[in-house]
C-alpha cells in the first residue's frame, strides 16, 4: 500500500525520442514533401479561421505530429475547415491543406 504524503509525483513532460514511433511522420513527409520545410513561424496559425473560434492551432499540431505525440490529435484535426488560407500565407510554400487532410487519413489508418 503506497504511503500518502499529501501530494503526488508530477509526470514529466519530457518526450523521449527513443520511445517514439516516427513512421506516421515519415508517411506524411513522403506524401507532402514540402512539410519538411516548415520553420515554425506560426503564420498559418495567425491567419487560421478555425483558430478564431476554437483552440485549433496548426503550429501546435505540427509540433505534436513531428514529435510523434498522436494522442487526441485526430479530434483536433477535425476542427480544420480546409479553407486553405494557411497555405496562402506560408512563407515556405508548404502545402498545408493537403498536409492536414493526409494527417487525418494517416491517423485514421493507424
Amino acid at each position: 500500500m503506497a504511503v500518502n504524503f499529501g501530494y503526488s509525483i508530477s509526470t514529466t513532460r519530457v518526450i523521449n525520442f527513443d520511445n517514439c514511433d516516427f513512421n506516421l511522420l515519415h508517411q506524411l513527409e513522403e506524401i507532402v514533401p514540402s512539410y519538411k520545410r516548415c520553420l515554425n513561424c506560426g503564420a498559418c496559425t495567425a491567419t487560421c479561421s478555425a483558430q478564431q473560434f476554437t483552440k485549433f492551432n496548426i503550429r501546435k499540431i505540427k509540433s505534436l505530429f513531428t514529435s510523434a505525440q498522436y494522442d487526441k490529435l485526430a479530434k483536433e484535426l477535425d476542427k480544420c475547415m480546409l479553407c486553405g488560407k494557411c497555405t496562402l500565407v506560408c512563407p515556405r510554400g508548404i502545402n498545408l491543406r493537403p498536409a492536414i487532410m493526409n494527417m487525418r487519413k494517416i491517423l485514421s489508418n493507424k
Partner: protein
Amino acid sequence: MTKRYWNEYQKEIADDHYFYERSCIRQTFFPGSETAFLKIMRDELHKDIYDEENQHTCTGIGYHSDIVPLETTMTVVARLFSLMNAAGYTNYVPSCVTSFGIFTEMVEIWKHNPAMLEKTREYLRKATGREFEPPANLVHPSDIIYKFRMELKEKMKYQLVNRFTGKPLRAVEHVGCHYAKIFPEKGIGKSEFPHVLVGMIEAWGGEVIDYPERRHCCGFGFRHYLLQENRGYSVANSKKKFESMEPYEPDFILTNCPGCAMFMDKWQYTIAEMENKTYDKEGYGIPVLTYEELTGLLLGYDPWKLGLQLHQVQSENLLNKIGIKYNPDEKYRGADGQILPIPNRPKFLKQ
C-alpha cells in the same frame, strides 16, 4: 588526448586561517558533517579555523523564496562579516552552498554598486552599531577539501575501491546550483565542468559517472518545495535524475550542497514508499553522502559519529564495499551513551 577544460578554471583558495559559518539545515539533517569538517581541518590538516558561536542565518531560504528583501539580506550578511572582522579573520568559509551563493552575490553587488555598500553599512550601524569589511577570500568548504585532497589522501585508511571486485567505486557527483551556476568563475571548473567533487572522487580512487541528467537540478529549488502541494514537482526533478543515473549503477551519490544531499536522499525514500521503486538493484536505494562524510569515512572516522544513520538511505552496503569496519550495535547510541529507540522501518525501502 582529451582536453580537460576545467584545468583552466581554478580559483584562489586561502591556505590557512578560516572563519567558518555553519548552515541552518545541515545541522538538522547531517549533523555530523560540520563537526567532521572542523575535525578534518584541525586534526588532519592542522589549519586554523574559527567556529563563531554568535552566528546566524544568511537568510538564503527566505531570500530565494521572495520572503526576505534584498536590503535585509545584505544587512544580515554584513553582520556575519562583522563577526568575522571582530574575530580577526579575512577568509570566510560558509558551510552551505546557498550561503556561499548569497555571500558571493552580495559582495558582487557591492563591488558594482558602492552606494549599496554604503547603505548596507548604514543599516548595520543603525541596527547593531557594528562596522564591517567584506572578506578577502570567500570559498566553500568543498573548495578547501578539494585543495588539500592529495594531503588528505596520504592520511586516508581506505580508498574508493570495491574490495570484492577490486574495481573503482562508481560515483554520481552532484554540485549545488548556487556553487557555480550563479557566478561561474567562483567555482572550480566553472559551471560547465565543476571539478570540485570530481577531483575528490578521482583522487581517492573512485570513478565518476557521466550520465545524461548530470547537471539537472536536485529538485530543491526553495519555493518549489516550501508548499506541500508543490512537492510533486520537486520529487519529479529528483526522479528524473535517478532514472537517468539508474542504468549506470552508481555505488553512491556525492554532493556539496545541503539541499541536494537532503532531497536526493529523502526523495528516494518518498519515491520508494509512493511508487514502490528504488534505483539500485537490491532495493536499498543509492546512498547519498556529503563530501565531509566521505572524507571522514575514508580517513577512518566512525560512520555513526559522522551521522550516517540519520540518512533515509542507509550506507551499510557502501561501507561493506569499501571495507570500512563498523559496529551495528553502536548505530543508535546517543551522545549520552544510551541506546536510542530504533526508528520505524520504511515499508518498501530496505534498510
